[in-house]
């Protein structure tokens, strides 16, 4: 919107325009103008898309693609029923969590945690236990529990050794180990 506004200086819209930044500050106009052309094109396509498309036709399409009513000519029940294979970004990454001695398993969505700290805290809450501090040298000290996971190869691994992103892509299930088994 800023791009369009800067072309309409003669209407003195600057005084009323909405923009980011503190009042009284001005962004360098040259930078504005350079962006203006691109933004104008994008904006007009967006506007065209909005005026053409009806509510029912706007799918979760990327904003840069304008949608035309009834095009492509696919019936609406086909659009709704056939969800393209959901990307990892949309579905959760649910894994089973077992705890030695517990009667049933739980499931958690690894997607919602940003790192090991959050995950371990959640496990502590879920199973009402303390897991202890991780160290590369000694694993989890200070408690009788150690969080382990089964990776893509089926091996039982200690949680925390690999970077978080690698962990969530290779972790197939979690197991909270207990007692003598847990300590090396």
């Amino acid at each position, binding site marked *: 919107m800023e791009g369009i506004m800067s072309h309409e200086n003669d209407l003195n819209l600057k005084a009323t325009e909405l923009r980011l930044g503190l009042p009284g500050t001005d962004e360098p106009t040259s930078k504005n103008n350079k962006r203006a052309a691109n933004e104008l094109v994008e904006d007009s396509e967006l506007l065209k898309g909005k005026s053409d498309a009806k509510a029912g036709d706007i799918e979760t399409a990327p904003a840069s693609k304008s*949608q035309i*009513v009834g095009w*492509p000519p*696919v019936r609406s029940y086909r659009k709704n029923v056939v969800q393209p294979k959901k990307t990892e970004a949309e579905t959760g990454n649910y894994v089973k969590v077992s705890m030695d001695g517990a009667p049933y398993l739980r499931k958690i969505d690894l997607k919602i945690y940003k790192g090991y700290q959050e995950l371990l805290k959640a496990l502590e809450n879920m199973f009402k236990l303390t897991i202890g501090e991780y160290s590369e040298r000694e694993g989890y000290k200070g408690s009788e529990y150690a969080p382990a996971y089964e990776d893509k190869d089926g091996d039982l691994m200690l949680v925390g050794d690999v970077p978080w992103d690698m962990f969530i892509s290779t972790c197939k299930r979690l197991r909270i180990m207990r007692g003598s088994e847990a300590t090396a």
Partner: protein
Amino acid sequence: MAQSFPEDVLVHVFSFLNCDKDRNAVSLVCKSWYDIERSSRRRIFIGNCYAVSPEILIRRFPDVRAVELKGKPHFADFNLVPEGWGGYVYPWVVSMARAYPWLEEIKLKRMVVTDESLELISKSFKNFKVLVLLSCEGFTTDGLAYIAANCRNLRELDLGESEVEDLSGHWLSHFPDNCTSLVSLNISCLVSEVSFSALERLVARSPNLKTLRLNRAVPLEKLPNLLYCAPQLVELGTGVYFAEIQSDIFSNLAEAFLGCKQLKGLSGFWDVVPAYLPAMYSVCSRITSLNLSYATAQNPDLVHFVSQCSNLQRLWVLDYIEDTGLEALAASCKDLQELRVFPSDPYDAEGNVTLTEQGLVAVSEGCPKLQSVLYFCRQMSNAALVTIARNRPNMIRFRLCIIEPRAPDYLTLEPLDTGFGAIVENCKELRRLSMSGLLTDRVFEYIGTHAKKLEMLSIAFAGNSDLGLHHVLSGCESLRKLEIRDCPFGDKALLANATKLETMRSLWMSSCSVSFGACKLLGQKMPRLNVEVINERGPPDSGPESCPVEKLYVYRTIAGPRVDMPGFVWTMDEHVSSRLSRATE
């Protein structure tokens, strides 16, 4: 003129005439043949419900047993016809309830059906047997309960791809225990779970059941139960084809399919788990019709399954089949007649599957009986179209949708005129054509010159001028339905070919350049046409006469202007000007 045959003999002779064309011809011979024919005609097909009225129908044909009606124009499928446009079946049901107490069959397409209509149907026709609702809307599962409960001899209930307000699955339990006549049941469009035990009992007591299309809510684990109740099934639509992978579920499924020796058609496959596809291998070689258009399986599982079906005649599939899959199809399914490839992700400009013109070319080469094609893809070339046309002169239906509007030949960047021209020139029996991509007036010249058997043509984002439309209207002798959107066609071609429109069922034009003035003129000059202007943004006379109308629907009729139009539809006849000015007072 002396009657040479007694009436009974003529009735008997006419009873061998089933096709409407023949019966219509016979009616024209003389008055007595007209009278005998009309009293003995039992089946009626009305392609446009507004072309005739219930009263006219009943007056001419006093004893009808089967009626088929179509309502909204085809482009309603793509949301181009606004809500509330029309196509109500209720007035028909009311009239027929009085006049045809022995009516057995009602088949509707793109009509608005209310629960009230369904209740009236269920109570008015004592021998009602067949209800087919394709792409209809306006009713709920409560309406279905009336049909289930009251139609003692129901043979067929097919909900097609209708939009049903799904209040609950309880309606199915309304089929009485003594209802054993079902031959065909299609509930695939419903969302709610029906009582499985009620369904199982219904299937078990229907020894003549040949077609069963379940809805998504029926779990895969329970499918074997139904198959054991109905091993005589010819067409099966599965419910969801998803379950946790367990060997006992697989073996139950495989064993149940083993018993289905008559199975020829398969559909359903929502959320398909490829590991369960091999459970059907025992039936694959008998399958002639396969609808995988909801199956999100990918290659190699997908192509492996399809290739097992060596006797396949019809395949509907998603573009996950890709070019490689279509090449395999071309090698293994030599009886293929119809192919439809739907886009898995229609709004993605790039697409993430490798489905190009190559796949279609391969099938056109390998499948000598291929005559019906619906193909969504993202690139096309004139060369490919020419090859397809030369390979398959027996093509009857050819519908190509290149996803990007006005996309040129991706190799030469030229319009696709030559390619589509080759199609109409080589495929002399072509009855239906839908085009896309970059097209100039020239392609319409080819169509007008060659497409003499063409009955239905769909055009979008094509052409340069009125000349394009003129070529089509003046050249296509067999044209019945023409639907156009977003083309620069205006008044001249339309008005110059006004009389042509009386030989067609209908013409649809939206987002074109037809002016309000031209519509008025057409309506005034052609009393046997209904010229309807659809303007949602306001009355068409709010601007100058030269202003283009938003949408135009023209159809021939003997029933006069319709009386059930919503506020955004205006009919152009000699009274239109006074009606419009009154409306603004």
